[in-house]
């Protein structure tokens, strides 16, 4: 059933391209604004860049999360979905996994122009960089999927989502930014592994919470 739900998410996105198009356009626009707004030395930019990257990712995630749930509100497809004999925790998992993959793809497309336009000089290990990106995205999306499930029934869900998500996402943002900054500065892994452990803890604990409480969150 999980694979059917996941396939449905991808098929919808493949048809509409609403999530990827909005994420990519927004991401590129933010990069251009950053590159034209900051006239600082490359050294200062290298210090700020990890934070800027994750702030941009958070904004992109909100855009994607809103669309992931909005298309199911249109014809009340979500009502039909949750009235079916399906474990609602699996619906949460499919939203989380698909959202993470959409965000990851968007980040991978946005990373080269970000690096180029902000004239960054860091040469981080690509494998480690990808690991931080994956964990950061999983962390943002686990919280986002949970909050979106809560907010989607509200009339002003598009306003409610960032208001609820941003404070909750602060630990993920701090951990991902610190880990990225440490990697880009060439600091040995053992000195910043705590941030990876924090990300893993958030992913596992909120993943379990989401899976277990999504039943009740979706009920009116």
């Amino acid at each position, binding site marked *: 059933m999980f694979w059917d739900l996941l396939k*449905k998410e991808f*098929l919808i996105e493949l048809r509409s391209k609403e999530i990827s198009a909005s994420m990519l356009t927004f991401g590129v626009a933010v990069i251009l604004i950053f590159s034209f707004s900051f006239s600082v030395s490359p050294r200062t930019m290298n210090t700020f860049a990890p934070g800027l990257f994750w702030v941009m990712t958070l904004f992109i995630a909100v855009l994607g999360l809103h669309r992931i749930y909005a298309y199911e509100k249109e014809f009340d497809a979500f*009502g039909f979905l949750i009235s079916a004999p399906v474990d609602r925790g699996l619906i949460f998992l499919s939203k989380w996994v698909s959202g993470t993959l959409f965000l990851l793809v968007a980040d991978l497309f946005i990373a080269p122009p970000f690096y180029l336009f902000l004239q960054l000089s860091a040469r981080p290990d690509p494998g480690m960089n990808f690991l931080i990106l994956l964990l950061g995205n999983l962390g943002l999306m686990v919280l986002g999927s949970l909050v979106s499930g809560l907010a989607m029934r509200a009339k002003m869900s598009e306003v409610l989502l960032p208001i609820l998500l941003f404070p909750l996402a602060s630990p993920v943002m701090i951990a991902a930014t610190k880990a990225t900054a440490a990697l880009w500065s060439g600091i040995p892994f053992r000195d910043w592994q705590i941030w990876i452990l924090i990300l893993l803890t958030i992913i596992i604990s909120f993943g379990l919470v989401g899976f277990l409480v999504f*039943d009740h969150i979706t009920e009116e």
Partner: protein
Amino acid sequence: MLSIQHLRKSFFRRPVLVDLTFQVGPGEIVGLMGKNGTGKSTLLRMIAGLSAPDGGEISVHGHRVGATQISSRQSVLYLGHAPGLYPGFSARENLTFAGRLYHESADRDGIREILREVGLERQADDPIKVYSQGMLQRLKLALAKLISWDLLLFDEPFSGLDAQGRELTARFFQTMQRPDKSCLLVLHDLNWALTHCSRILLLDQGKIVRDAGCGPETHTEWKRVYHSLMN
């Protein structure tokens, strides 16, 4: 089949359903009637497990209805006001996905046959966002034909249908008069309800004001009660 005991629901402290108790037995087609805003759709959504009651209990086949109770949803099909399907998907894709959700093994030919029966064969591959209200209603009928249910909850099955669509829907409910199936339908056409339902529940201000069968001898009394309530 369906048992409702002392059910209560309020929205913003305004009571919508007040201490509702009734049963629907196997083989019954029950019409749920009443003015707008008397809680008919809310009742259906609660039986489907979409909305939590403030008090009371709902059970289907002895399984308590609740957010975590998959077993109670296994034999219930809820078709609400909205299409409840994916606008970007075609009718065929929507039926295939819905079939998977309900663990139905519907093949391509089976789905094509159902779509032919409801008059949507030619539009089977069009995204349903271009469908008219009547076509979406026919698609809901296709869902009811595809999925094996014991209890069908259908909110206004005739809404937006043309004469042919109404005829098709009426025929469908005639074929569903079987001892293993029950239907709870939100209706606004008393004459249709009197002809096709085995029982009518009349709701007013969240309470059942009349619960009686629809034999020919009851028609005059039903019309009198119904019209006095609606006017």
